[in-house]
């Protein structure tokens, strides 16, 4: 599986870069507008993934699939939908060899090529939380966004969703999708909203520890390599990790301003 997807990823990246260049060429104005907005934004939810800790167990991928009613595809590797995916790449020669492990949710870019190219406004940027989300009923399945996304995190439903034996046992908090539309990671927004709502009700700010295990992938992570929190809170775990000097973002030079940070292995 890994290999085929890797090559697909590479393909998408290449193809995506083409579109992204188009998208990026219209960026400057938007970057400016965005930066203004960012300042005033209430939350800045980010995920931090510690690559030193990640052991490549795939627990995040499966927890995500179960939580978000993600459909199954058992036969075609290139049509599998994993909102969160783990990749391996072998480096070096025997016996000095390592499998580099990398895992990838949606990056929820502040400056989002996918939103910029969407012709119907199906995919949009939630200003309050800073997340890139999707209105499924507006999606026309043109897949511009999938091409534009430089990270390849948008997945198309090529067929009627297959839930295996759990058709009757889906998570009622998450809307199901249908054939012909795009879907992707939401940072488990349905879980996030509960916490925001509760804090609002009680008239207080969200506590850092309420966010720690919020997305299903973060909660289940076996080596606790994933962290989630609000970057606007300078005392939050994620803020401290982002400041640690080990943090970087993927393809940062594209100017997409992703909200997923990686901590370097060394």
């Amino acid at each position, binding site marked *: 599986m890994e290999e085929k997807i890797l090559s697909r990823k590479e393909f998408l990246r290449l193809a995506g870069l083409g579109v992204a260049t188009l998208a990026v060429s219209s960026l400057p104005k938007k970057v400016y507008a965005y930066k203004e907005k960012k300042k005033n934004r209430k939350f800045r939810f980010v995920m931090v993934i510690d690559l030193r800790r990640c*052991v490549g*167990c795939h627990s995040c991928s499966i927890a995500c699939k179960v939580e978000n009613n993600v459909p199954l595809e*058992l036969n075609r590797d290139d049509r*599998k939908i994993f909102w969160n995916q783990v990749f391996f790449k072998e480096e070096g020669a025997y016996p000095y060899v390592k499998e580099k492990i990398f895992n990838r949710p949606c990056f929820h870019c502040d400056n989002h090529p996918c939103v910029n190219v969407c012709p119907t406004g199906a995919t949009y940027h939630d200003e309050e939380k800073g997340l890139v989300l999707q209105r499924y009923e507006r999606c026309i399945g043109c897949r511009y966004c999938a091409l534009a996304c430089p990270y390849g995190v948008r997945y198309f439903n090529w067929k009627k969703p297959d839930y295996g*034996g759990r058709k009757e046992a889906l998570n009622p908090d998450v809307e199901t999708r249908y054939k012909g539309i795009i879907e992707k990671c939401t940072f488990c927004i349905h879980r996030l909203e509960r916490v925001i709502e509760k804090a609002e009700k009680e008239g207080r700010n969200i506590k850092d*520890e309420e966010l*720690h295990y919020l997305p299903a992938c973060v909660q289940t992570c076996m080596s606790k390599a994933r962290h989630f929190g609000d970057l606007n809170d300078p005392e939050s775990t994620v803020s401290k990790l982002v400041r640690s000097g080990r943090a970087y973002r993927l393809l940062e030079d594209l100017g997409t301003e992703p909200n997923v940070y990686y901590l370097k292995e060394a």
Partner: protein
Amino acid sequence: MKLTRKEFLKLVGTTAGVISGVNRLNKFAYATTKKSKPKFKEEWIFSCCNMCGGQSGIMVRVVDGKVVKIEPNPYNPNNFSNISTDFFANIEKEGTCICPKGNAGILTLYDPERIKNPLKRTNPKKGIAVNPGFVEISWEEAYSEIVRRLKQLRDNGEAHKLLWFSEDHSFTHIQDDFCKLFGTPNYSIHSNLCDTARKASFKMVMGDERPLMDSFQSKYILLFGWNPLSATKWSYLPRIITRAIENGAKLVVVDPYLSYTANKAQEWIPIRPGTDGAMALAMGNVIIRERLYDETFIKEWTVGFEEYAEYVKDKTPEWQEKITSVPAKTVERIAIEFATTKPQVVDVWSGPGHHSNGVQGGRAIALLAALVGGYDRPGTLLIPDRKGNKHIEVHPDETAKKNLKEKRFDELKDLYPFGHNSGVYCEIFSRLAEGRGPYKPKMAVIIFQNPMMSVPGTKTVEKALQNLEFVVVNDIFLSETALMADIVIPGTTYLERYDLNTHWVTWPVLGLRQPVVKPLFGQPTEYEFVCELGRRLGLKEEDGNAFFWEGRISGERIEDKTKWYEEYLSKELKEGEPKITLEELKKLPGAVWVSKKGTRYEKYKDIIPQEKLADTIIEGNIVYSKKKDGTKDKQIGMLKEDGTVVRGFFTSSGKVEFYNSDLVKMKDAWGKPVNPLPVYEPRRWQPDKEYPFYLINWKEASHTHTRTQNNAYLIELKGENPLMINTETAKKLGIKDGDLVWVESPYGKVKAKVKLTEGIHPEVVGLQHGFGHWGLGKTAQDRGTSDAILRPCLAEPLSGQALHKECCVKIYRA
């Protein structure tokens, strides 16, 4: 974490139904849902996983009676750490975890291909690729047919001709009781397919079957053939290892294959399969030569050091290089690093254990820990305090007693000097197939086991099952073994039944598995099935007590089998360490009982108080507890030279044993005297011109043994098990990545897809265990390769461990 969790749960109850179809047309689908009211009933139930044998705690979300999500139990140490101080201090802060299999459990529960009704074979011919012609029958018919057969055996004085097989973590006590009351000594469980070689190695060296590594507090972690970061039997393993590395520990993994663990290690040392013992002896040589051993510990707490030192004198790093292919310089360096970085832990699991020299090899590795005083101290190998529920002894009646006097069919006690009470599957099946053994068994009941794929030597197992008169299989799928059965009984998943799980940490912890939904098809759970058989057979205890009717606490006759079993468990809890009832256990946070005592170290120094000594038996310098009838029971301590009585180690000398002269009196299953030293002897099957490659297999986080391959989530994740070949080797053979090849041994040949890698020893090929199904279900079938057919059905001669990795093959393009 606790607080957050509570808050989270409370919230779930009040604001459920966040996104539903109603909101579809709203402009901001996610923002306008706040006022929606719950449209469904939901609850969270704490339980324990059983997707593998690790028993991690889970928290199951049940909506309108359906399981919709499985999450880690935030109170269960098995999901966090095996050390109590770490657990109590950090669990709330860091949170718990479960593995991909645990997450995917929901699709095993709701697998459309589960067996729903009892099935009866109509085709008398049995075999691989033979259609059994199963027809559905009523429960009444199934029970009466099975009971008729069982009754016949028992009435004819042949109760011992019933073979019983089971998994080793679930509903074991009641099956054991059934076998005793029925009168068969042939109750065998899965362990001897797993790690009985390791159990024997450590038992010989330090008297405990399963020490656990405290990697969390360690500074140097040396692992031989163990893959804890992916074969995550206990969910805490990835955390305690990656955390140790963060805290400055060095992780070194010796393994022919770049396992996930080797991949995260600072150093991977590829080695020829089955030669780990030689490397360990050479390390012993260096440590003694450089005088880096723990002199005080050795003097006070070990025996036989002189003999060991003498033996390893010529086992130099250069000597081992020819055997293991590991450079002498590397061994020299690793030995010195290991001995000088404290605290250090060394461990070995099933990699080296699945070869015919596995026990002695493991013993040489276990002795490295002895050299540096690495037992039961922080950051080393700990002796777990395994107190939990108590298995209460049953007293069989006269009929049963007569049959229980018969030998086990595998002659475990006579043949395998360090055999495990789980039996020897390989011996049982090869004897059945070849018509050997003390008698001819007639019937088998196989519960939650799939020996057709999990025991080496598929053809032998096939023949063995053909030679039985009647086979009953209880499983959730039509496994390869179920396809050989005369009657198949639908089983239950772990989400539909009870179990008590004494947990795999170093201090007493007990987790409850409880039904989160009722059995989907109204079928009985495995314990209810056994109970029903017992009732219909009218099995009684010695004193006439109708065991399967009488409530163990109330003493009353209980019609409802579930209620009866709840009392059975309650009694075990009451009499055991927790001293609470089942109902009380259910109410504990996370339905897990955690002893406050915590992890204790250097328990071997514990002094046994005078008043306790009154009721003991002392033989030589070893102290045993007394049974009710005055005979000697378990070893509890040793008399020291200074006259005090301490716990010591539960070996024959009460100390860690480098050398044991008594061993020479014993013979192994192949008729050879047991060597009193941890000798290195090459395994029996070596590569030759015709079959030049070692074939090994391993486990990964994506699947458990041969039983999860019908789970669509896991198959989507990992749908095949390519044969991994070193790039250089493949080049010489003219094989390219993705090619189909034949893998052939003298026992058979199988087709496999090749994946090239730099991460495997050039003389070795290997694949993940568990694929190549022809049963189970459509999702599992025609995916990957099963290599069990390439091996003989053979066990390690000291421990009875199945030899899953002793195999040589040739490879050519298909």
